[in-house]
């Protein structure tokens, strides 16, 4: 068959470090032909490009996008599982499964990610402290290896290759479809308790003792305020609303699911962007004050609870031509002092945008490159052209390494091979298996080159 490529300049969601690759959108049956047509720069799959850094780029090589439709997904109502093509987005799946009484087992802050990307990044969400990351819920998946052969693998079937693929950043093979378990729901609403915390200490205290009573928990923090207000924050915790909680009128359409699209940021934004010290400080003040000191049992729709930013298309353009980074790391429990020191460092630098999130993680899973570890994870968005950003992040990298922490590969756009080797003590074990299944280095990415993953 004819393999038809387009040359495209690709970046991640942060719109930094562009590189060029030969791209094509392919259907499942054609993948083998397209990977044969690659050169020494290799092949990589790309989903919706929501990784912030260079994880879904392959400079000089081939980058493929897998076609897929949520209509073809198979929902097994009895078992509560779903089998979907790797190229299908959670957005499309939710529109099919929510009205039928199911929710995805794990969702990140955006529903515009593909199922394949969810496995390859082993994504986590607000329920990690009780239910783990996406890989924990995968029953089996089909993987095409570098030689074109297709294998069905899972936690019981070839577990070492399965766990190397979970969090493996697409470097073990091409994920074709995935079967994973779902969360049964009675309504499409969430019951949310809100608590405002005056500073980071109050927040850590609150999360340490109350999180386990809730399925979902996440905090937004202000990293521009100083002194006794350092890390003032809003903590939202909740679960899916039970049918019995609704009035009979609302119960009639309990599973209605209509995510709204408010607006899109146009392609042309002034090159300096709209995110700066003043706009961020103003946003933080309003955001903090709009929340009640303590509120129990408010109802929120799923899109507004799980994916508030998805209502605004291409919001990454707000950062202007320079783009931005999302710096995310995890520190183990017992390193709360170091967490506070890092927060102080970010606050002093005055670089953080309003999107700062703190989450308390639960247990890790068996995947060598899975990011979540028992402890804390902090996520900070920063404009990439912020003065002195490079050295700030290197010094935080150092603190993360010293504290036994690690960086999230799906977000990373800056760190070094050393920090990754230190943060993932099982990297060598993963590399050995990767080499075994891909001796000719068919699978490559900019992230893998930069961080020496392969």
């Amino acid at each position, binding site marked *: 068959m004819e393999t038809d490529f387009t*040359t495209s300049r690709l970046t991640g969601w942060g719109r930094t470090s562009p590189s060029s690759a030969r791209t094509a959108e392919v259907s499942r049956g054609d993948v083998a032909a397209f990977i044969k047509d690659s050169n020494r720069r290799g092949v990589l799959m790309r989903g919706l490009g929501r990784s912030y850094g260079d994880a879904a780029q392959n*400079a000089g090589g081939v980058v493929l996008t897998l076609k897929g439709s949520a209509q073809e997904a198979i929902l097994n109502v009895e078992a509560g599982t779903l089998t979907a093509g790797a190229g299908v987005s959670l957005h499309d799946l939710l529109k099919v499964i929510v009205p039928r009484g199911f929710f995805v087992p794990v969702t990140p802050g955006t529903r515009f990610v593909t199922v394949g990307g969810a496995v390859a990044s082993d994504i986590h969400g607000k329920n990690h402290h009780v239910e783990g990351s996406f890989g924990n819920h995968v029953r089996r998946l089909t993987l095409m290896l570098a030689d074109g052969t297709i294998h069905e693998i899972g936690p019981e079937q070839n577990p070492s290759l399965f766990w190397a693929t979970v969090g493996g950043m697409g470097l073990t093979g091409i994920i074709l479809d995935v079967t994973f378990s779902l969360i049964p729901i009675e309504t499409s609403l969430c019951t949310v308790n809100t608590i405002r915390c005056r500073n980071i200490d109050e927040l850590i205290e609150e999360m340490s003792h109350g999180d386990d009573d809730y399925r979902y928990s996440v905090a937004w923090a202000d990293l521009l305020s100083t002194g006794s207000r350092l890390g003032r924050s809003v903590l939202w915790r909740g679960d899916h609303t039970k049918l019995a909680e609704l009035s009979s009128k609302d119960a009639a359409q309990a599973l209605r699911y209509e995510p709204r699209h408010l607006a899109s940021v146009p392609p042309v934004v002034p090159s300096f962007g709209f995110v700066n010290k003043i706009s961020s400080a103003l946003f933080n003040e309003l955001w903090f004050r709009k929340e009640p000191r303590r509120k129990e049992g408010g109802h929120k729709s799923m899109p507004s609870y799980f994916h508030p930013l998805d209502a605004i298309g291409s919001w990454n353009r707000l950062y202007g031509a320079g783009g931005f980074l999302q710096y995310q790391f995890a520190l183990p429990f017992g390193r709360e002092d170091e967490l506070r020191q890092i927060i102080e460092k970010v606050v002093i630098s005055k670089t953080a945008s309003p999107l700062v999130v703190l989450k308390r993680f639960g247990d890790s899973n068996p995947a060598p490159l899975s990011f979540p570890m028992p402890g804390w994870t902090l996520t900070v968005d920063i404009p990439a052209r912020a003065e002195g950003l490079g050295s700030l992040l290197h010094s935080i990298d150092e603190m993360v390494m010293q504290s036994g922490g690690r960086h999230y590969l799906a977000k990373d756009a*800056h760190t070094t091979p050393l920090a990754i080797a230190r943060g993932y003590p099982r990297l060598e074990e993963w590399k050995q298996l990767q080499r075994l299944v891909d001796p000719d280095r068919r699978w490559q990415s*900019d992230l893998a080159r930069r961080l020496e993953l392969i």
Partner: protein
Amino acid sequence: MENAVGEAQNILVLGGRSEIGLAIARELLTPSTQRVTLACRQPGESREVEASLARNGLSVESVSFDAADTASHAEFVNNVVASCGDLDVVILAFGVLGSQEQCDDDSQSAVKIAHTNYTGAVSIAMEVAHRFRQQGHGRLIILSSVAGERTRKANYVYGSTKAGLDAFAQGLSDAMVGTGASVMIVRPGFVHSAMTTGMKAAPFSTTPDVVAKLTVKGLRAGKRIVWTPGILRWVFMVMRHLPVAIWRRMPMG
């Protein structure tokens, strides 16, 4: 690979003895940088320079490179890539100033300068660009000079090579759009360095460190052309249009 804040892992300096080239390489050094390769005619003589760049986690190496030997350039780039991997930033910094008087007496001196500064630079830049297209990323910094903006009688052979190189670099820069790679042109004024020792400094003279700072700042901001110091852009906007009779009589040559 270059990271999101423009920190390079792998740097190649063409003209590994050039003070400006080295100053730019030094300015580019971050904890992300893993390798600096200095390409020069006599790699054995760069020990001191290598030592001045050395730090933990960084490998500095000198390799043999002759700008005038254009036939060797393709193999040279292949060898560097084979041992270092993808080239993130390449600094094209070699060039000879020569002596205008010597050129006036011996046309071969002029040919030599033209061959190294222009032909040699075009040759290696084409090879680097070829590699950049293959690897889908990379940044080439080409050291031009304000001497090429309008040639003057005191150094018109040198000036003309820079004029030619500058025009070439502009075309190459446009040609690279869409390849994932880019070309940036740096136009320094009079720079105090070994190359200009003993010469009378022109107005708005500068130092290799200042050139390096502005170059790296421009690189990270995605600039196509950087003047160092920046005011020269406006100075030469005027100079370019001075009547010949005045230009010829200007005190700096």
